[in-house]
């Protein structure tokens, strides 16, 4: 056989065996954060393995939510993979908008996904979105200021201890605030924090008949405690502070404590960004002795919209991006502190990852969060810092605006709770829940 004939035969054989597995270009909508940007930089590895290429559409979190929700509801087909969270996944899956991820390969080892993450991204026991990175919330504190105040942070502090420690660490003359917390309006900003905090005070959004519960003592206690503590030990203008504002304050050494997403740990301990990188300790989010802590649970996950023409290639990408080997790839290129956290059990069993200072506290925080039983009293919804119903985002944004008005001194706690109660019940009635 001549060389030409041989190469022709080889090419023909390749085409036949490839049968249908043609190289595709995937369009992926994602959010702008450090882990996602890192993934974009490593996409060539996926292309080398599969031949598929990727077009990234990176958007700010709130813009992304609006964009992908419009597209999936209208069946626009603009994206082959969408980055969504724990709030959207069960709702969209129930609507039949997502492709079930129930046929991932054995090598992928879906059982290795942390149970809390898998539960939050499933509908009726089927996984609909694969977690790329997961987070809970925890308490970050300045070890030097704590020592100066003559206190020792327990691994699992109570709210009362946190309040007293905040007052002791506050030093207005040196511009040090004992505690920094989110107060910014928005269901994913201050709304998420106060909802998670209220769980530890025994409050809940709805009773089992979907009646709003803002007229209960537990909610009054939550809000009064928060306002008293922040007035005494919080930064000026905390009503408009979100994650970024508090991160900036903490990195500049202006916060004694900060309770927020576990992902913040890598920022505050990074000596290139933080002036207090070597003086940060971690503890579980506080509780009130009622059996529920004030930490939340969240994951950014990759899902495939139903109706995409590139389902097989999209699944290949999801398997690659959320696999154990991807974590190893990031560790090899950028170090273990930069791997996407909070998704796989095996990561936390890895001795090299265990040496990362915030790894164990992140895992403990994630494991202590239970989205199916988020509150002291029973509730009809799933979700810790949210209720996984379509109406929640709109209602919670309005409620958080009322709460932010309290933080800004524009109304009283009682007035805000009365308005929250009325608007929530009105919205739930209009939506047919009551």
């Amino acid at each position, binding site marked *: 056989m001549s060389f030409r004939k041989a190469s022709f035969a080889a090419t023909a054989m390749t085409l036949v065996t490839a049968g249908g597995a043609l190289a595709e270009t995937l369009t992926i909508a994602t959010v*702008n954060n450090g882990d996602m940007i890192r993934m974009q930089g490593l996409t060539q590895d996926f292309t080398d393995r599969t031949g598929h290429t990727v077009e990234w559409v990176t958007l700010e979190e709130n*813009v992304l939510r609006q964009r992908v929700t419009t597209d999936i509801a209208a069946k626009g087909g603009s994206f082959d993979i969408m980055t969504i969270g724990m709030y959207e996944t069960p709702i969209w899956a129930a609507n039949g908008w997502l492709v079930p991820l129930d046929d991932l390969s054995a090598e992928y080892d879906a059982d290795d996904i942390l149970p809390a993450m898998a539960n939050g991204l499933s509908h009726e026991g089927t996984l609909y979105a694969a977690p790329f990175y997961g987070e809970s919330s925890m308490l970050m504190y300045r070890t030097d200021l704590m020592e100066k105040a003559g206190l020792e942070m327990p691994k699992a502090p109570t709210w009362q201890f946190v309040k007293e420690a905040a007052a002791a660490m506050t030093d207005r003359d040196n511009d040090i605030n004992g505690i920094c917390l989110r107060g910014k309006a928005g269901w994913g900003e201050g709304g998420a924090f106060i909802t998670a905090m209220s769980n530890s005070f025994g409050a809940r959004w709805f009773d089992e008949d979907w009646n709003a519960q803002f007229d209960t003592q537990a909610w009054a206690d939550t809000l009064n405690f928060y306002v008293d503590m922040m007035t005494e030990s919080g930064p000026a203008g905390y009503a408009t502070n979100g994650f970024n504002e508090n991160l900036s304050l903490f990195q500049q050494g202006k916060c004694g404590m900060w309770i927020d997403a576990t992902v913040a740990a890598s920022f505050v301990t990074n000596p290139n960004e933080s002036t207090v990188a070597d003086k940060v300790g971690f503890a579980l989010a506080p509780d009130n002795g009622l059996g529920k802590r004030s930490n939340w649970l969240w994951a950014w996950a990759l899902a495939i919209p139903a109706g995409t023409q590139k389902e097989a290639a999209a699944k290949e990408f999801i398997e690659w991006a959320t696999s154990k080997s991807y974590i190893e790839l990031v560790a090899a290129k950028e170090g273990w502190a930069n791997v996407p956290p909070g998704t796989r059990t095996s990561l936390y069993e890895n001795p090299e990852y265990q040496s990362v200072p915030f790894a164990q506290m992140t895992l403990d925080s994630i494991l202590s969060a239970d989205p199916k039983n988020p509150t002291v009293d029973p509730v009809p919804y799933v979700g810790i810092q949210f209720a996984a119903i379509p109406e929640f985002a709109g209602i919670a944004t309005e409620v958080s605006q009322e709460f932010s008005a309290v933080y800004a001194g524009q109304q009283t706690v009682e007035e805000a709770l009365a308005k929250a109660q009325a608007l929530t019940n009105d919205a739930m009635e209009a939506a047919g829940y009551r």
Partner: protein
Amino acid sequence: MARAVTRNRKIVNTALAWGIGLLIFFPILWTILTSFKTEAQAISDPPVFLAFDWTLENYGIVLERSNYMRFLWNSVIIAGGSTVLGIIVAVPAAWSMAFVPSRRTKDILLWMLSTKMLPAVGVLYPIYLIFIRLGILDSRTGLVIVLMLMNLPIIVWMLYTYFREIPGEILEAARMDGASLKNEIVHVLMPMAVPGIASTLLLNFILAWNEAFWTLNLTAANAAPLTAFIASYSSPEGLFFAKLSAASTMAIAPILILGWFSQKQLVSGLTFGAVK
């Protein structure tokens, strides 16, 4: 005495104008300065103004991460296309309203303007569905059409205002000399209205360039312009202000340069007919 008062007033007015001008320009200046800082310097308190280690690192990262030229090209096509198309549609409309008005002309003008009062999000879903049906989602053609329609009331209003300043007798004389309607508009009316048309073109180009609702909601990977480029560097969870500032500077630089060189035409067009 009167001379002294006039000179003093001139100094005060000049100082006031410079003060207001700098106040308006300050956010842009701050964005440009921040783009040359490190992320730590970008959030430092007290903020540093000029005394920092200037770096081009953010520009390097942004250029490595994003295909800037593709976003820029999309912006040029979308802003330019929608403006030119808008002028083509608006010139005859403004001509008829200015020179052959009917009893309902003013009502139509007000109705056109009233469409600008509807929040854009109110029609997002219907337009999204129409775009899917027509197959123009995430296409430059779709955005040219939608931005032209969004800015059309402003274009018609501006041209109508300029055309009203032109004596109808001149057009009448052209007609009597045998000019067709097309020739009357193209060869008589438009040359006389060049300053007005130029400023309308420029203003609408700037409006279309900066439009961020439709350009974000109707695009994905193919037709995304510079507004989407900026949005990809904004994050509520992570401090990327220096990179965001670099991306913003790169997005506004072309329009800033265009505005700088065409400011004479822009101002003369906007004040055209203001003083009689």
